[in-house]
C-alpha cells in the first residue's frame, strides 16, 4: 500500500510537468491554431537561461523568475517574427516550421552549453516526508503544488481579467475580435509569451531530476502531446487531468505489469489515447466541433 501511494504521488509529480507543457501547447493552439512541437525545446532553453543566471550568482528563485520573464518575451518575439508569417497558410507548413524551430533551439542549446548533462539545483529540499507509511519526496509534493497554483492563476487570468477576455476573444474569432477593437496581433504575442513562460516553469521543475541537456524535454513533449489529445484540445482542465492520469498510470504499469517494465511504459499513454479516442474522438473532456458545410 505504501509503495502504491508513493507511485501515485511520483506519478502526479511527473504528470504535473507534462500538464504544464500540455497547457502551454493548448494555449498556443487556442491562440494560433497550431501544434507547437518546439514547446519542449523552448522550455529547455528557458531552463538553460535560469541556469546561467543562477551561475552568475543570483539566488535560485530570482534566476527562475528572470528566466520566466525572458521566456515570455522570447515567445512573443517568436510569434511575431517567425510564426505569424505561417499562421494563415498551409497547416502542414506551420507544423514543420515549429519542427524547424525545435531543431534550431536544440542546436543553439547544444552549441552554447554542449550535450553534456549539467546539474540544475532543485527549488525544493531533497528531504522526504512520511505519509501513511509511504516515503514521499518533498520535491514531488512541491512540484504538484506549484503547478496547481499556476493553473489556478491562469484560470483566474482567463476568466477574471479583461486581458483574459481579449485573449479568449482572439482565440474564438480573430476577425470579430479585431472588429471590436481588440489588438489581435498583440494578443497572439501574449498567448505565445504565456505559453513560453509556462514551459519555462515546467523546464526548471524537471531539470533537477533529469539534469539539463538539450534534449531534456523530448520525451516530456511526447507525453504532453498525448495528454493534449486525451484531454481534448479545447479543455485546459481536461488536459491537466489527462496528464496526471498518464503520469500515474505509466508509473503503476511499469511496476505492477511485468511485461511492460520501464522500457515499454511509454506505450501506456498511447494505448490509453487509442482506446479513448475510439470511444470519444473529441477527447475525454473536449467539445465536439461542428463544422458547417
Amino acid at each position: 500500500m505504501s509503495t502504491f501511494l508513493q507511485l501515485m504521488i511520483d506519478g502526479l509529480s511527473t504528470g504535473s510537468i507534462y500538464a504544464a507543457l500540455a497547457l502551454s501547447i493548448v494555449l498556443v493552439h487556442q491562440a494560433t491554431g497550431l501544434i507547437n512541437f518546439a514547446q519542449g525545446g523552448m522550455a529547455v532553453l528557458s531552463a538553460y537561461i535560469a541556469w546561467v543566471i543562477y551561475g552568475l550568482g543570483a539566488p535560485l528563485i530570482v534566476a527562475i523568475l528572470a528566466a520566466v520573464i525572458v521566456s515570455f518575451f522570447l515567445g512573443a518575439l517568436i510569434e511575431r517574427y517567425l510564426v505569424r508569417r505561417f499562421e494563415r497558410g498551409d497547416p502542414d507548413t506551420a507544423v514543420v516550421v515549429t519542427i524547424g524551430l525545435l531543431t534550431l533551439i536544440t542546436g543553439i542549446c547544444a552549441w552554447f552549453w554542449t550535450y553534456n548533462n549539467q546539474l540544475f539545483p532543485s527549488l525544493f529540499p531533497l528531504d522526504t516526508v512520511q505519509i501513511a507509511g509511504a516515503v514521499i519526496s518533498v520535491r514531488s509534493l512541491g512540484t504538484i503544488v506549484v503547478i496547481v497554483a499556476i493553473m489556478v492563476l491562469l484560470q483566474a487570468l482567463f476568466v477574471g481579467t479583461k486581458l483574459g477576455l481579449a485573449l479568449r476573444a482572439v482565440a474564438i474569432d480573430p476577425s470579430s475580435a479585431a472588429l471590436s477593437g481588440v489588438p489581435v496581433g498583440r494578443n497572439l504575442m501574449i498567448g505565445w509569451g504565456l505559453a513560453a513562460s509556462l514551459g519555462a516553469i515546467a523546464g526548471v521543475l524537471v531539470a533537477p531530476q533529469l539534469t539539463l541537456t538539450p534534449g531534456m524535454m523530448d520525451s516530456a513533449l511526447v507525453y504532453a502531446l498525448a495528454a493534449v489529445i486525451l484531454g481534448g484540445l479545447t479543455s485546459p482542465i481536461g488536459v491537466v487531468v489527462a496528464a496526471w492520469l498518464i503520469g500515474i498510470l505509466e508509473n503503476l504499469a511499469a511496476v505492477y505489469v511485468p511485461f511492460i517494465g520501464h522500457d515499454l511504459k511509454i506505450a501506456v499513454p498511447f494505448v490509453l489515447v487509442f482506446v479513448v479516442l475510439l470511444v470519444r474522438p473529441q477527447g475525454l473532456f473536449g467539445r465536439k466541433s461542428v463544422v458547417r458545410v
Partner: protein
Amino acid sequence: MTATNSFSTAPASPWRARLERPWVRWGLVALVVVLAIVVPLLLPEFANQTLARIGVFSVAVLGLNVVMGYAGQISLGQIFFVGLGAYVTAYGYNAGWNIVIVFVLACLIPAVVGMVVALAAARLGGLAIAMVTIALPIIGVPLAKRFSEVTGGSQGTSARFSAAPEWSGLYDDQWQLYLVILIGGATFMLTRNLVRGKYGRAFAIVKGNESVAASMGVSPYRYKVLAFTIASLIGGVSGFLYMVVIQYTSPETLNFGHSIELLASMVIGGAGSIIGSLIGGAWYVLVPQVTNIIDPNLTTVLQGAILLIVLFFLPNGFVSLPRLLRRIGRRDAPQRSAAEVPQHIEE
C-alpha cells in the same frame, strides 16, 4: 497546392506549353533513362552511395506524400513502416527465404499493419491521426529492443544480399544504385499514375472537404484508410531498399526524430508533388552531410536555420521555386504587352 495540381491543364506559361509537346516529353523521359543507366557507371563510389541513399529516402517521402500531401492526413509514423520493411527484409533474408518473397513480404507486412492502424485511426479527426501515428515509432523502438530474437535487440541486425553478382561485372555500389533506381523508379511511376487518376482526385477532395467528398459518393473513411495503406506499403518498399543500400538496421532506424525529419523533408520538397518527393529525399540525405562539412558542432543549428529560411521564402517547398522566380521576373519586366499579361496573372 491541390489547385495547381488538378487544374494545371491551361498553358500557364510558354515554358509549360513547350514541355507538354509529346516529343519534348518523350525526349526528356529518354534522357532520364539514359542518365539512370550511364550515371552509376561514371560516378565515384561515394557519389553512388549518396545517390542510392537519396533514392531510399525519396521513396519514404513519397509514401508520406501520398497520405499527407495528397490525402491531407498528418502522419508522424512513416519511419515506422520503413523500419518494419527493413526488419522484415533482414529477418527473411537471414532465415534463408527467396529474396523475391522477402521483397513481397517487406511490402505486404507494413501495408497490412498500416491498414489495421488506419482502420482505427481514420475514424478520428485530423490531429488524432497525428497522435496515433506519432505513437508508432515511439512504441516501435522499445518493442524492437524487446523482441531481440527476431530483431537483434539494441545491436540491430544486418543482411548482406546486395553484393553485385559475378556476371554483371559491376561494383557493389553500382549494383545497389541500379536496384534502387529500378525499384524506386517503378514505385515513383506507379504512385504518379495513382495520384493522377481517379484515386488522386478522390484523395484531393477528401483533403479539401470531407463533407463534400461524402456528398459526392467518395467515402472519406475508405480513402483515408486506402491512402494510409498505400503510404505504409511504399514505406515497406523504402525499408527494403534501405537494407539494399545500408544493409543494417537497428532500433535507431525507427527513431521518432527521423520521422519528424521525413515530414520536414516532405514539406521542404513540396507537399502533394512527385518531384517534391525526390527533392525531399535529397534534402533528407544531403543537408546533414553539408552542415557536417561546414562545422560538426553547428550541424543542428544550421539544419534548423536552413529549414526555417527555406520555408520563410518558399512556404510551399522547393517545387514552388519556378513559380516564385516567374513572379519575380514578371515584377522586373512590367512593360510587357497587355495581351500577354492577364494570362499570366490567372494562375
